[in-house]
């Protein structure tokens, strides 16, 4: 039997668990069980990407995967239903590092990925059909999403500009994930010409496993969500309205704690031995997610007002365009902070 994606995923967990957890822990991790133990496990063993990322996992599929790994001598039993990778297993896994969905962040997005995706795919379908002049049956039946999208499109007005903006952002973001993930993601979308494909249909087309396809899809989806939250994709950021992901990434949380102790960006970068740009990313994340966080210490009030005015009059969220309009007097970081705070404010109202 050839190895399945499930055995890759399990091997990854086993390496992280170092023989300290049983298959049940992996099961709870994938299914996203909200117990203190599982939450702790996912952080302690750095398995946050997988938290709640395979919601319909079954114990028997994990057992089969474990059985296969043991049979191939890639893993060995170290206790009651606990395994650890053998040396061969470590090697096998590192050869397959590329299969790891590196943008996936189940811990942060497992609860909000569905509404976000529903909004995105319904907006895509709606614009596609409106632009093609066709009537259509919405590909989503969730009343909340239907209402949200309707209101969103009404507030937006100019359809051509929105179409352009979303197309350009998606094109740019998908170009940053693997070609395979980008294809999976695009095939899941519904257009006027084509109803989106199920994971299984995409899997059959690519001659890959459906589980692998699901993970590729989430990899792309979570990347898009993360970029939206970081303020680098303003149109998509608006789709996060009212969706509160698990508050902050761990790293941003640490930065936030240092900020609250009165440290500056430079000081935090030095203490945490991180690049200044990383700390800036954290600040943007905090600005978008923590309503109580004020950006005043980092952007002068006039500058903030100017950025807001420029964004509004230009009707754009493109950083470069805004910066050019302001004669280069504001930094990209300042613009991102202001826009992130705006998105945060909009989310709350």
């Amino acid at each position, binding site marked *: 039997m050839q190895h399945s994606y499930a055995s890759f995923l399990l091997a990854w967990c086993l390496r992280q668990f170092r023989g300290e957890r049983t298959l049940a822990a992996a099961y709870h991790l994938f299914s996203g069980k909200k117990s203190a133990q599982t939450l702790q496990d996912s952080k302690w063993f750095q398995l946050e990407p997988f938290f709640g990322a395979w919601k319909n996992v079954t114990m028997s599929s994990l057992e089969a995967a474990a059985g296969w790994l043991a049979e191939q001598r890639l893993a060995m039993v170290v206790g009651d239903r606990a395994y650890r990778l053998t040396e061969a297993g470590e090697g096998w896994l590192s050869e397959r590092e590329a299969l790891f969905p590196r943008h996936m962040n189940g811990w942060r997005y497992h609860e909000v990925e569905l509404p976000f995706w529903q909004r995105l795919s319904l907006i895509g379908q709606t614009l596609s059909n409106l632009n093609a002049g066709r009537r259509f049956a919405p590909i989503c039946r969730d009343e909340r999403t239907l209402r949200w999208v309707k209101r969103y499109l009404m507030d937006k007005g100019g359809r051509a500009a929105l179409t352009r903006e979303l197309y350009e952002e998606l094109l740019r973001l*998908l170009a940053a994930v693997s070609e395979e993930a980008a294809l999976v993601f695009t095939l899941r979308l519904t257009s006027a010409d084509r109803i989106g494909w199920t994971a299984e249909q995409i899997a059959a087309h690519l001659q890959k496993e459906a589980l692998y396809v699901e993970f590729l899809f989430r990899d792309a989806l979570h990347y898009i969500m993360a970029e939206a939250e970081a303020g680098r994709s303003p149109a998509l950021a608006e789709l996060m309205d009212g969706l509160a992901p698990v508050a902050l990434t761990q790293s941003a949380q640490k930065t936030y704690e240092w900020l609250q102790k009165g440290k500056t960006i430079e000081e935090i970068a030095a203490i945490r031995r991180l690049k200044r740009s990383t700390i800036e990313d954290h600040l943007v994340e905090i600005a978008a997610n923590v309503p109580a966080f004020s950006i005043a210490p980092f952007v002068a009030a006039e500058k903030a007002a100017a950025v807001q005015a420029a964004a509004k009059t230009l009707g754009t969220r493109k950083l470069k365009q805004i910066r050019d309009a302001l004669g280069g007097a504001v930094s990209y970081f300042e613009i991102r902070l202001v826009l992130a705070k705006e998105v945060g404010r909009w989310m709350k109202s």
Partner: protein
Amino acid sequence: MDEIVNTLRKQFGHHSFRPGQREVIDDVLAGRDVLAMLPTGSGKSLCYQLPAYVRPGRVLIVSPLVSLMEDQVEQLRRRGEKRVIAFHSLLDEEEKGQALASLADFRFIYASPEMLQSASFLAALRRAPVSLFVVDEAHCISQWGYDFRPDFLKLGDVRRALGNPPCLALTATAPPQVRDDIIRTLGMREARRHIYSVDRPNIALKVEHCRSPEEKAERIIEYAQRLKGPGIIYFSSRQGAEEIARRLERSGAGRVAYYHAGMDGEQRLLVQQQFLHGQLDLVCCTSAFGMGINKENVRFVLHFHMPAQLEAYVQEIGRAGRDGAPSLAVLFYADGDGAMAQAVAEAELPHPHELREWFRRLPEGAGLDRFRVWVETSRFTDIQKRLLSYVLEREQSLVFGAPTLLGERVAAAVEERRRWKRKKVREMEGWVHELSCRRSRLVHAFGEELAVRPDRCCDRCGLSLGDYVGRESRQTAVFVRDWREELWNLFFGGRPPHEAAK
């Protein structure tokens, strides 16, 4: 041209009525109570939708399935109707509150029976009185009806509480006994009965006897490959549907997908929409597929497993040939299928042993509310719980003081249901083994006589399959562009200009 035909054209874009619609609509507009039995695919919903555009007022429609409600709401909206809403368990409190406050603004109010148990909902309905009370799939009211739903039994009380608005009960499959139950339960007065034959003359009927499940699989694949599509293949198990779908795909029978209740909502909707949009040739599915799907050109319906009753069979094959063009229904049968159908049907009933155990563990002196909670938290399946709640409700006077007797009554009710289900399976099997005309036997089960026998009737009357074989070549591989082109196509249509494709 009269007002009604005018509305039909303007609002619905049709130029003529289908059999039965006009007669039902006239009675509804005259304010009468109406029971309408119209065959599947005959446009039952028009019977209450059209009157709403002729006379002012609000229509309340009770429907057993959320998906069915969503489909109807979606269709109305697509026709440009904005004043429509559906109340069901998937709505959250805030949404419900908002909608209740503005109930008077709606023309069509869809509700699940459990929503109608809510005092605030009833109060809102009394403030915004309904001019027509519609019960869709009304056979769910009768315990002798296919797909009995005990919460439908309370609809009579609901109607009274709303001041007895005129009532329209709709069904596609109700034998005489069930029709009487519907009229009695809903308290309909001098009800006008519009009963149309369950027969669908353009659907030819055939049974294929096979020696084994494997032979069935091979035969069904052969049929699916050769018949003119699109088509639906029904299974009684999810695994069966998945497995044959995969085999069909490999056999080059076209674009195939499976559909069952074990899939998540999005995947189900995708498959359903793909089928509607002609992206699929075949759907392998359980009975979860088809309700509310208005696809006109389904050319055949195959059954890998025999349904547990004729009513279900009639409903399922009724998804073929809604456009009136010749269509085919083939049921594949092997020895032992009767026992299997029986097992599937009886899985809906609690086992006598489990039932006794459950009663034994009941807390002593428990009141009716406690009973209800106890049922809810039990390990019985949803369908079993529904049956239990129904019997408990009916025998509630025994809850206090006579728990042993109550236990016996419940057990007796379950046994009665078991006997009834067995009878239904036998009836279905009788049809499978029928030696003379199948159509005639089918309508007979619904208390009818066959008036006209179509040319292409059934295998017993003589049937040439050649009429249903399609020569169209089916697509197997689907053309997929580069993702950048797909994305461009989604937003702008067509293909990207050369630079953008890079």
